[in-house]
């Protein structure tokens, strides 16, 4: 069964690109534009990997990450931040919020694929 990845980003271009990149590799990708929708999706499906943007309207990625980690069945699920933020403090905050990885945009597609496959095989 294909691994399922939830992509949360308010930028449609990013959602499309990630979908295009990951789907051919055999992953099932569910892109959503906001934290609220992400939380909804989380209840409907079981995801193997969560890719979160940080800067989003209403609920930012850090907040979303914290809420996800509060869910019983997502305590261990790998969470990767993919964000334009690159400062060390941001990285620290992301890890603090419960993420496993903090990636700065832009990131080369190859590297990203490598990380995904390393994480969820």
């Amino acid at each position, binding site marked *: 069964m294909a691994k399922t990845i939830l992509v949360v980003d308010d*930028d449609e*271009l990013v959602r499309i*690109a990630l979908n295009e*990149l990951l789907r*051919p590799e055999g992953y099932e990708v569910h892109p959503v534009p906001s934290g609220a929708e992400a939380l909804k999706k989380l209840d409907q499906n079981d995801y193997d990997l969560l890719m979160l943007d940080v800067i989003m309207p209403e609920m930012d990625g850090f907040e979303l990450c914290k809420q996800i980690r509060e869910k019983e069945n997502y305590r261990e699920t790998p969470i990767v931040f993919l964000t*334009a933020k690159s400062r060390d403090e941001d990285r620290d905050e992301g890890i603090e919020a419960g993420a496993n990885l903090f990636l700065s945009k*832009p990131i*080369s*597609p190859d590297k990203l694929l490598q990380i995904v496959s390393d994480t969820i095989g």
Partner: protein
Amino acid sequence: MFIPLFRDWKIRTKLISVTLFVVLVPLLCVAFLSMDRFGKALKNASDEDLEHLVRSVYSMCKVHQEEVQEKGQIVHFLDEEIKEIKVGDTGYVYIIDTEGVLKIHPAKVGENIFDLRDSSGFRYIRAMITDALALGNGEVGTIRYPWMNPELGEKSPRQKINKYIYFRPWNWIIVAGTYEDEIYRSLYETERFIILMGLAALALVLILTLTLSKVLTKPIQELTDVTTKMVGGDLSQRVITRSADEIGVLGVSFNRMIGQIQHYTSDLEKMVEARTGELKESREKYRNISRFLNNVLDSATVYAIMALDFCGNIIEFNRGAEKLFGWKKEDVLNNKNISITILPADRKKGIQEEMSKRTRSEGVCELEMYRVRKNGERFPAHTTITAIKDLSGKATGFVEIVRDITLRRSLEKELRETKEFLENVMESSVDGVLTTDLKGKITYQNRAMEEILGYPKEEVLGGHISRFYVRGIQQAKDVMALLQKEEMAVNYEMEVKRKDGEALTILTSLFLLRDEETNVIGTAGIFKDITEQKRLEAKLKATQASLVEASKMRALGELVAGVAHELNNPLMASQTILHVIFKNLPDDYPERERLEIIRKCNDRIEKIVEHLREFSRQTKPEFKEIDVNQPVENALIITGQQLLNHNISLVRRLSQDLPKVIGDSNQLEQVFLNLISNARDAMDETTGPKELTILSYMREYEGPPMVVVSVQDTGEGIPEENLDKVLEPFFSTKPVGKGTGLGLSLCFGIIEAHGGRLEIESQHGNGTEIKILLPAKASGKE
């Protein structure tokens, strides 16, 4: 009493009075005596005539009584007879009986006139009948009464006289009456004659007396006239001497005397004339002076001018005094003492006596004191008292001139206060103030000036201003010329030297001093030592520039971060999609090369964004106490091979005993890397020797100690027009793609964050030196 009176009479009067006395009095006595006697005799004669008439009628009646029996006939006969009788002009005889009935009367026979009244209302008929009845036989009675007969046109009563007799047989009263003046006429005529004769005699005597007196007094009168004329000043008159008597002799000698007098008088007159001229002149002069003095007195309304007698009583009081003291001239003149204008307290102290004493001994006494007005108001006054002296030099009184000096006092006070105020202002001014006369001699210098130049007041006063000037007398002349031309110079900058020789930059405002007639009498200047200010200003300017630069950088940092962030998503999307496309394309896809170009574009964009992010990285530097040589060495390790590759020789002189600085080693390393690579690039095109010099040393002058790292190249240098742009982001002279124009900007930002600064010195063609200055860690500081 009479004698002296008589003595004073004129001779004529004397003669007349004597004559009158001697001639007239006896004459009058004789006249009166004779008139009296004569009058009486005549009167008796007249009375007797009348009486006689009555008696004749009486005897007629008696005769008829004896001859004829019948009374009626007799009456008729008698009537005829009696009517014939006239007494005087209007007098007549009539008969009444004792009842008052007229028996015989020229006009009114049968009328009863018993109660007839005379003009005074007296019933004279009644009285007459009573008297007649009482008379003895043959006796005649007399009655006088006033009577007016209006029928004859008489206006006033005349005295009438009646003689009557009682004829008993027939009970008749025979009356003869007439006006007295008629029967006394002759008497009156005689009297008149005597009076006339008397008057004639009197007139004659008078005429004679007058003539005599005239004859006697005429020469005397003439003498008197001449004398009177002489007295009146006419000496040409002479007495005419007609006779050789005593008066004639007198006249001759009198004339001689006049001659003498005339002679003397003419001499005297000449003298008098001359003297009169002089007197007139001097009197005119005196009058002018007096008028002038009066004018002075009255027009000196500001000065109270008073004359006092020896005891201080006021004897003159001009209008000014009235105005000043409030007393009226008429109230004080010869009535009040000057003490009314002196304060009671002063009076008690005996100031008046003191003033008087001083005036007498020194001739004048001048002092300032309080005086008092009529209403009790006091005022400060200046008084001058001088003594009035008589011809012998003895003081007889004083003249006092008093002036109200309230205004002067207040002006003086104001002036004093203003002066003190100005002196205080001057002395407490932080700016130097200095004045000179026209020749440049210093006339005043305030405390601040003393401090600025270091010369004490006593040393400079009177000295020449040029000693302060760096260029000496020439500078003084220049300043004066400028002032003459411009009147004043505001914020004029010049160089002066202190006493200790130090040159100062002075900001001065200079102006000309003028007297009331606007003549230039000197110069004045306000000086401000701006040496320190100048230095600070230069520093401030530099600081300001770097601050502006810094804030510009911060704003730019934010902008760049925003741009980089916004570019991230599309860039990532673009790269990802391109990656997918490449993966799906067959290897021989003809458009692959074009897509490859797009990927290169993406890579370039990514690199720029990367650089931008680095530039705008907001990570805080991690400050530690470091040796600044450490990051320099690190940078050189990284770039050493590159420099060799570019044939650049390296000169490295790093001071080993530098104090530590507080800094982020990584960031500083980045800075030096940047500077070194810039130097390397700058020397790429150079044909001459390529040399990179790196120095580190301490700079301890000008402010707090700094550690300096200098990076010098021998490149072409920065053109002057670019010098102020090199720190701006995106300014680059490197070929496109080789530099982002952010290197120096980045360095600047980092150094600024370290509290240091960056100095660039470059001359086109002679290479560039960039100094990084970092504050040395002061000992004792953490």
